[in-house]
């Protein structure tokens, strides 16, 4: 039963001006998805050995466009659009100044994106989305990506300032859950992106401009992965925001526990940053003690991940039982299987089970050798980011976009959206499954089609590459469907009111302790852990630095 005041809260709308800012981000995100998705399809076709790229486009150029557009641009823009709307919805309309920060951030990011994209398109920057030295791109590519980061700091500052304002106006009260989560995610993002900013400003830019000849490769990779792992949690936490704070409302239930949700976000903040070495486990030049230490810290994320799983199962079970589900699993059938806003994120959650299990294998120190630089890794992150995160974002788009455009998701679009999610799940199971299996038999990631001089081992990979192309083709149908739905929601769907769903906390939950909102404690622990995990190894890396490397342009 909903009371009148709850009904009134459901109708709270994101202010039009804030909505416009959020939508600007959403546009860029889906343009990136359309182009990046096409590249993905072409990659799988090339790798199956049945297709040659026209007009002198290189495979690695294509892969760079795909990785940058989908891994960096789609994610960052959708996340900012979603976070702006979430803060405006739960902490109140942004002030003019906060919104101005948002717009300045948006334009700086967009100028940067455009500059980097042009460099990739004219084939001056086919260095893949991790822009690993000693591959050397045109300096404008690095400068453009640096602008994306600086822009995100400015936009982020506007949202953090809203949070500070809310806390001042409501002393002694816990902030709205979604706003709190956004601030955790932004804090993590700002702390980690300092690392890649240092890499770009002090290493890659001077080197690509020719001011210095050589670059310390190990140091640059270390700075990259100090950023790179929290980056993946920066993608994931907004999906968790939807799972914790929005999905319970969509299924008609309540948030299982506000404190548990906040605690798990704080744990993600603490254990996402001091762990970058788990991407460098095969790297010579880092002592195994420090690798081991960061592996231990990495595996700590199992705790908030299982807290999240428990909390979600509990939300579903309580709701399903309230609807009359009987027995141990009868509640499962009661969930709203006809609602795309639930089904798409739910498939994303399911994908996170193999994704998480694979992640634990990747991070298990010596066992990393089994999969390192094989296409298993590509299979892994197409489950995490390209399924779990992306399907949750699609599910969110089905209410976020119509909420912001003053339209509604029609019955047909809802049905199409469910089909979209199923198509994506099928395509990804085939593509990612084939990648996992063939990765275990040594097939490399980031590789153009090759028979490797007639090697028998490489010949055994080819059927799996064909399977990836079949999966990729199905996925591309999924891309066409989602773009069709998004275009409909932006410009063609019937006018009307769509709710921005935000769940209430269960009456069974304990009161939220304010210590969870004590930033002095959490940021201190966060920085202490980073210094603990990185100071000594970074000093060792610098002191024992090998001769630097000149730049290579191998494409």
């Amino acid at each position, binding site marked *: 039963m909903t009371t009148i005041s709850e009904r009134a809260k459901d109708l709270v709308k994101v202010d039009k001006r804030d909505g416009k800012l959020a939508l600007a981000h959403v546009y860029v995100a889906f343009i990136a998805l359309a182009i990046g998705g096409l590249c993905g399809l072409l990659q799988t076709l090339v790798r199956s050995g049945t297709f040659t790229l026209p007009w002198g486009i290189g495979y690695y150029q294509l892969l760079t466009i795909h990785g940058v557009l989908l891994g960096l641009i789609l994610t960052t823009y959708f996340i900012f659009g979603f976070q702006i709307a979430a803060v405006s919805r739960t902490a109140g309309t942004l002030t003019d100044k906060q919104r101005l920060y948002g717009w300045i951030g948006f334009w700086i990011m967009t100028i940067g994106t455009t500059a980097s994209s042009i460099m990739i398109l004219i084939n001056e920057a086919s260095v893949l989305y991790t822009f690993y030295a000693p591959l050397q791109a045109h300096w404008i590519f690095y400068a453009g990506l640096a602008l994306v980061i600086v822009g995100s700091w400015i936009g982020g500052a506007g949202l953090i300032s809203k949070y500070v304002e809310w806390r001042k106006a409501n002393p002694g009260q816990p902030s709205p859950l979604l706003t709190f989560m956004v601030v955790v995610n932004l804090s993590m993002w700002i702390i980690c992106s300092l690392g890649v900013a240092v890499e770009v400003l002090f290493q890659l830019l001077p080197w690509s401009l020719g001011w210095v000849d050589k670059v310390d490769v190990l140091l640059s990779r270390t700075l990259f992965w100090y950023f790179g792992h929290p980056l993946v949690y920066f993608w994931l936490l907004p999906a968790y925001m939807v799972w914790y704070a929005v999905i319970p409302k969509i299924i008609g239930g309540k948030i299982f526990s506000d404190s548990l949700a906040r605690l798990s976000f704080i744990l993600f903040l603490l254990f996402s940053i001091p762990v970058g070495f788990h991407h460098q486990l095969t790297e010579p030049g880092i002592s195994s003690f420090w690798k081991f230490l960061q592996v231990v810290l990495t595996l700590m994320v199992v705790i908030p991940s299982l807290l999240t799983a428990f909390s979600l199962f509990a939300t579903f*079970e309580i709701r399903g*039982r309230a609807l009359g589900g009987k027995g141990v699993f009868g*509640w499962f059938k009661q969930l709203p299987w006809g609602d795309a806003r639930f089904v798409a994120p739910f498939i994303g959650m399911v994908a996170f089970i193999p994704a998480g299990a694979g992640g634990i294998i990747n991070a298990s120190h010596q066992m990393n050798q089994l999969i390192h630089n094989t296409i298993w890794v590509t299979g892994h992150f197409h489950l995490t980011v390209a399924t779990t995160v992306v399907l949750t974002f699609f599910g969110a788009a089905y209410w976020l976009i119509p909420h912001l455009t003053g339209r509604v998701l029609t019955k047909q679009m809802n049905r199409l959206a469910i089909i979209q999610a199923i198509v994506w799940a099928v395509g990804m199971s085939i593509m990612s499954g084939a990648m996992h299996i063939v990765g275990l038999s040594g097939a490399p990631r980031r590789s153009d089609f090759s028979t490797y001089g007639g090697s028998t081992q490489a010949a055994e990979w080819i059927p799996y590459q064909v399977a990836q192309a079949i999966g990729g083709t199905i996925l591309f149908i999924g891309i066409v469907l989602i773009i069709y739905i998004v275009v409909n929601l932006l410009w063609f769907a019937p006018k009307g009111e769509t709710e921005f769903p935000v769940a209430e906390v269960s009456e069974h939950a304990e009161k939220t302790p304010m210590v969870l909102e004590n930033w002095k404690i959490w940021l201190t622990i966060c920085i202490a852990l980073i210094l603990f995990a990185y100071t000594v190894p970074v000093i060792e890396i610098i002191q024992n630095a090998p001769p630097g490397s000149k730049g290579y342009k191998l494409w």
Partner: protein
Amino acid sequence: MSKKREKEPDLKGTLYSVGFLGAFILITWFMAFYLFIDRF
């Protein structure tokens, strides 16, 4: 703990689900582990 709390919600399904999840993680991990021992 508040005294006026009604009876605890029944979370048996949640318990089993989390149990399956843990078992799945352990099984896949050990499969990879044996592959690793076999090869290296």
